[in-house]
């Protein structure tokens, strides 16, 4: 009989997280309680000034807008990713389609943002094409507004939702859909009443994987948005580099982290009513039961499929 060394296996990861996650977080917490240095940085004396500064109406407005933009983008992403993940899971050449979803990752994040600028910008490809066709000489202002920010955010984070959704839907037993149809439900009802509850874990993962990074977005609103598209990430960056109020930047960062943590907790860890349901749907673990590697298939499913290493 083998001894279960369960706790020991997580030691390397625990060490890693302590050094690269917990420690920086603690430093930020500490900075938020220090006095602001004259030209940035901090002075080593205790102060709650930063936390007092947080409660100002401008910041509240940006926070609400950030929430609103993140929510809108996340909802659009999930609505797009569900049919997309479904069609990949049911297609015969899953590998090719997954590959196509992943291809954009080969290009740097910023480069892809600039690509959108060169497509949609005032002198961009679309406007030039319109001018060439003689349709609209003065061109459209596509960018530098809230809509453009949401659009590019959706583009950027869509794959993060498609992958976990695909992974769960792929394991979904499609005969359940036939059973639902057989028992009198319409096609739509079979998706909403049977498939959706059974892929809940994947939906939760997809929401977390998109909402959290979007909530902290910085580059997209900076480059694609206008002045009114500022999100919390931009405010923090400004506090660090322009206003040079590091304690305030730290305090805002901490509040964001707390806010996100609470939201995640409420959304994903909310205990289902009956105890059994916990076993059926483990919300935060990825559908395949691992923390990374979307393409892993559970045991007993022999279909060939690219491994996590090969594609990611």
């Amino acid at each position, binding site marked *: 009989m083998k001894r279960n060394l369960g706790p020991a296996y997580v030691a390397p990861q625990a060490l890693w997280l302590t050094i690269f996650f917990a420690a920086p977080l603690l430093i930020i917490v500490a900075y938020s309680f220090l006095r602001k240095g004259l030209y940035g940085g901090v002075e080593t004396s205790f102060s709650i000034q930063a936390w007092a500064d947080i409660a100002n109406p401008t910041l509240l407005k940006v926070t609400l807008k950030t929430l609103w933009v993140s929510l809108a983008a996340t909802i659009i992403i999930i609505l797009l990713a569900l049919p997309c993940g479904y069609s990949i899971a049911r297609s015969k050449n899953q590998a090719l389609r997954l590959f196509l979803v992943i291809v954009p990752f080969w290009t740097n994040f910023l480069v892809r943002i600039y690509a959108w600028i060169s497509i949609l910008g005032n002198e961009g490809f679309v406007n030039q094409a319109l001018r060439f066709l003689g349709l609209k000489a003065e061109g459209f202002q596509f960018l530098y507004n809230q809509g453009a920010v949401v659009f590019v955010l959706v583009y950027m984070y869509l794959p993060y939702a498609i992958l976990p959704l695909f992974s769960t839907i792929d394991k979904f037993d499609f*005969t359940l859909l036939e*059973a639902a*149809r*057989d*028992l009198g439900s319409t096609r739509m009802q079979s998706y909403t009443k*049977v498939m959706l509850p059974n892929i809940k874990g994947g939906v939760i993962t997809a929401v977390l994987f998109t909402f959290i990074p979007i909530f902290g977005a910085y580059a997209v609103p900076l480059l694609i948005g206008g002045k009114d598209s500022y999100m919390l990430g931009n405010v923090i960056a400004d506090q660090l580099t322009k206003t040079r109020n590091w304690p305030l930047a730290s305090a805002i960062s901490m509040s964001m982290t707390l806010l996100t943590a609470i939201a995640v907790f409420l959304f994903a860890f909310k205990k289902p009513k009956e105890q059994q349901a916990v076993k059926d749907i483990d919300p935060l673990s990825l559908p395949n039961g691992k923390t990374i590697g979307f393409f892993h298939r559970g045991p007993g499913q022999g279909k060939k499929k690219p491994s996590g290493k090969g594609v990611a």
Partner: protein
Amino acid sequence: MKGSDVTVSNVSKSFGGFTALKDVSLEIKKGEFYSLLGPSGCGKTTLLRAIAGFEDPDSGTILIDGSDVSGLSPDKRHCNTVFQSYALFPHLTVFENVAFPLRIKKTPTRLIKELVMKHLSLVQLEGHAEKKPSQLSGGQKQRVAIARALINEPSVLLLDEPLSALDAKLRQHMLMELDSIHDKVGITFIYVTHDQQEALSVSDRIAVMNAGLVLQVGSPQQIYENPATEFVARFIGETNIFRGKVLSRKGTLNVIEVESFGQLLVDDETPVEVGDTIVVTIRPEKIRISNDEPSGDELNAVRGVVEEPVYSGFQTKYIVRVEGGGRLTTFRQHANWSEGIPDIEWKDEVFLSFSARDLVIVEKSPG
């Protein structure tokens, strides 16, 4: 009589280049327990799915109660399916699984409770209403699937190898239970199986299929005693097959010459000509095995040596090498075991005898 009649006429279906159903025609009567029996891959599931509405036939029509159902989606057909894999909804309790069709129809809650409990008691699962499917045994899951399929009061119940995932003992039990449910609800059952014992023991009629074709339709007795083809004879139960040339024919009595057996008498109404090559079959239990030489007019008798006795409690199966070199299988029941009938053992010299009337012609080809 409740239930519907189902008429399948000239239905063909192919997947890519592969033909799964070839011109299949069946007439299933109201309230019948009708089995589709055949080896794996012969198209049983495809036919069932065509009736349920999951598969569109390439040609041919399916009529339920006389009206063409082509183009009707599964939710619009008065048939429900018990899936081979059960297909219970894992996120719902047993109660909610069975209630699912009623919730879709927006049946009043009070009525739902009453109907669900009635159907759960029909399958003897009253005590398990609040469990999740994952907490049930295979047999219990099967029952939930049956209750769920029956609650809409379909006129046809389609069952796709519903017992194949259960162990032998439970399978027997569930089979009898299915039979009694069929008696109670009185609707048409179309039952897919590749297990001939299952089909023989509960069906009113059986359609034997192979490679997309229906080979024979008949009662269990007809199928077993009068197989229409060599395939049916071999597929249903154990059998002995002889291939021989007709030497003479007087009335229905033929004398045939079979290689490595010698001459056999075959009494069968199938018209054959002298010189035809025919295939005849006889069930092992119709061959008597004894130590003494038998006598009789229309009797075939051969001498042989027991090559392999296979004891199985209620009977022993003997594989006997006959003088000509061929092999025959015979069963002997142990009804009189205690009376001390002489035991027959390995390497014993024995006589096999069988009546000319028990041989059935299953195939013939001229010359």
